[in-house]
């Protein structure tokens, strides 16, 4: 049982939770994720860690309501407990000094991008961040991203904030303007697919942090398998970060939807 220490609404459907987890706060590195479970009949859900405070012994998670499990998690208030929390999981980001890093986050993907961008900045890189969302209300953590970036470009699909357009428009503006050594992309699979296609054309090495379906998160089930460079890899123990140019995003998109019918059936019967 881990206590909720803080809760902030970024928007009606996006919530930032500060959860008590002193060991994870100490052990986690940028790029790690955790598995969270709410309620004795709850599902195990992977979430990338958005930040940690070792002094308070807590980690930060940013959750978007998309189904029954995220709804339960977002309904928790300060003082409530998550039933189970385990981590940190996955391999951390390999942070090196490479030069200029293009840090790209879409939607709630901006949250896990934050510690990674911060780590690259701390390692002495020039960090240009591109954060994107459908509308203004889904642009989150802008100030925090600014604090660890040399420059931030904000993109919204509808132009309600920042520049109008998708994330790749913002990325391309940087790529044609200056030399970029590495791109990092976190967000919806479809966004990462197009971001990877863009950087491949420009031959910029790119990391994608994948958000696959998982059960245990420790290599045991294989639900999170993904094809990378023609080989099957497990997102939980081999990732979650892979060479974006080698990831079969079409397969990944299909796999993310694999259990949709079964989930819908559950939703109907549990009403």
């Amino acid at each position: 049982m881990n206590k909720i220490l803080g809760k902030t609404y970024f928007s009606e459907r996006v919530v930032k939770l500060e959860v008590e987890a002193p060991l994870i706060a100490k052990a986690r590195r940028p790029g790690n994720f955790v598995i969270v479970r709410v309620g004795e009949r709850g599902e195990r859900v992977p979430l990338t860690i958005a930040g940690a405070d070792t002094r308070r012994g807590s980690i930060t998670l940013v959750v978007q309501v998309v189904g029954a499990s995220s709804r339960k998690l977002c309904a928790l208030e300060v003082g409530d407990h998550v039933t189970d929390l385990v981590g940190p999981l996955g391999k951390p980001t390999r942070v090196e000094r490479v030069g200029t890093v293009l840090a790209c986050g879409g939607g709630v993907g901006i949250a896990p991008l934050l510690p990674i961008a911060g780590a690259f900045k701390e390692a002495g890189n020039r960090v240009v961040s591109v954060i994107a969302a459908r509308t203004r209300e889904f642009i989150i953590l802008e100030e925090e991203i600014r604090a660890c970036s040399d420059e931030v470009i904000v993109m919204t699909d509808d132009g309600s904030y920042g520049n109008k357009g998708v994330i790749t428009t913002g990325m391309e503006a940087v790529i044609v303007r200056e030399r970029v050594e590495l791109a990092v992309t976190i967000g919806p699979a479809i966004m990462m697919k197009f971001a990877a296609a863009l950087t491949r054309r420009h031959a910029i090495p790119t990391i994608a942090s994948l958000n696959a379906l998982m059960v245990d998160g420790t290599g045991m089930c294989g639900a999170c398998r993904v094809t990378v460079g023609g080989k099957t890899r497990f997102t939980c123990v081999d990732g979650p970060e892979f060479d974006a140019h080698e990831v079969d995003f079409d397969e990944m998109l299909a796999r993310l939807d694999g259990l949709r019918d079964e989930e819908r059936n559950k939703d109907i019967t549990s009403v």
Partner: protein
Amino acid sequence: MEITSDRNEAWRKALRVAFPAKDRLAIERVTMPEVPPAERVKSQRVEVNKGVTPAMAQREARRCMDCVTPACMEGCPVGVDIPGFVKEIERGEFTRAAAVLKRASALPAVCGRVCPQEKQCEERCFLVQKLKKEAVAIGYLERFAADHERETGDAPLPESLPANGIRVAVVGSGPSGLSCAGDLAKAGFDVTVFEALHEIGGVLKYGIPEFRLPNRVVDAEIDQLRRLGVRFVTNYIVGMTGTLDDLRADGFRCFYISSGAGLPRFMNIPGENSNGILSANEYLTRVNLMGAGSVEADTPVYRGRHVVVVGGGNTAMDSARTARRLGAERVMIVYRRGEEEMPARVEEVKHAREEGCEFITLTNPMAYLADERRRVKQVIVQRMTLGEADESGRRTPVAVEGSEYALDTDMVIVAVGVSPNPIIPRSVPGLAVSRRGTIEVDPESMQTSVPDLYAGGDIVRGGATVILAMGDGRRAAQHICRRFSGT
């Protein structure tokens, strides 16, 4: 392994005299009462084997000849005093029988259900070896004694030595870890078991279905360990949540790694990542650990109408039988060797067949075809024949060219084995690991290349049985006791 059998006690002598061998040999082996197939396939939780009655158990125990040198015990990886507990049953001392079991086994109610006795103790039974008769039903009797103790609430704690204050960490709460923890606790150690999942029990919970091993049986054995003073920490991944050095700094002086074979193998054939194709580990974990078969659980699981299960082991049988219980109309077990070569227990194969699972043997998948939504719709299989025997003594399957055909399916469960979980091996500097990823140990002591680290079970064996894993745990515990004796 220490074997104690007080065959010369007066009551044992008296029993032997009271019933001559001729009378004992005339008794037929007991048949396990079962829930009928049509009824049991309606529930994931109804245990198929109902267990024997006290009268049946005593009668079966009478078949045991109480041999001078009980060969059955040589077949038991944890060294249970088999005639010792069987004769206690014969004379009606059921609680004492359970106590004899508990001297060697931390999990007798589990072993009595899932051990392959037919390949271990029962295979060595005098009745089989010398008289070509059916073995004493040692497994049924073990289960009977353990169940009797649990159900009557008549469970005295096994005797333990005074606390020695030495902290030992056990990594993983499956059968190997529980066995080691139990022996160490009885020897006076301060034992903490760290488990990555949110439930204690490892494969006993996530892997073996309730129709074969009910959770309440596992929980009762875990409770016994708690009463012995063993502490359990869930949601803690050693190597991730904390390192061995963190635990050493917390005062742990020795470690037993039993983190299991938590990495399912796939065949790496075309289309294998299509939707509707999953590992047996995933399928069984969703259903057993997460309760996905129930509408109240949040965790979803695929529901196939025409399910293909690939593999011939117990996990394949468990998956096939689970699929039947979750409503599959047709379940096809596809195995590349013949039924003779199947590693699954005979009882599991029998139960699967009774429950309507089809066996398509000498057949191997080559590729999967998917529909426009990337959901599997067909598996292309190939006929096989058996060639030369390999090093394990089993004949190697050889493909029959041009024998390919398609099976229609909407869900495939891949149960072709597991590899060692990589988390511990890669988080411990200096740990010797084999090419296959298993931790290397001294086979006598189970000690690894890191002096305060012992390991056993599937992380060492790469995929074995509950009882072999338990045997490793016991051996490591003995060595740990010796290591600290005199301190």
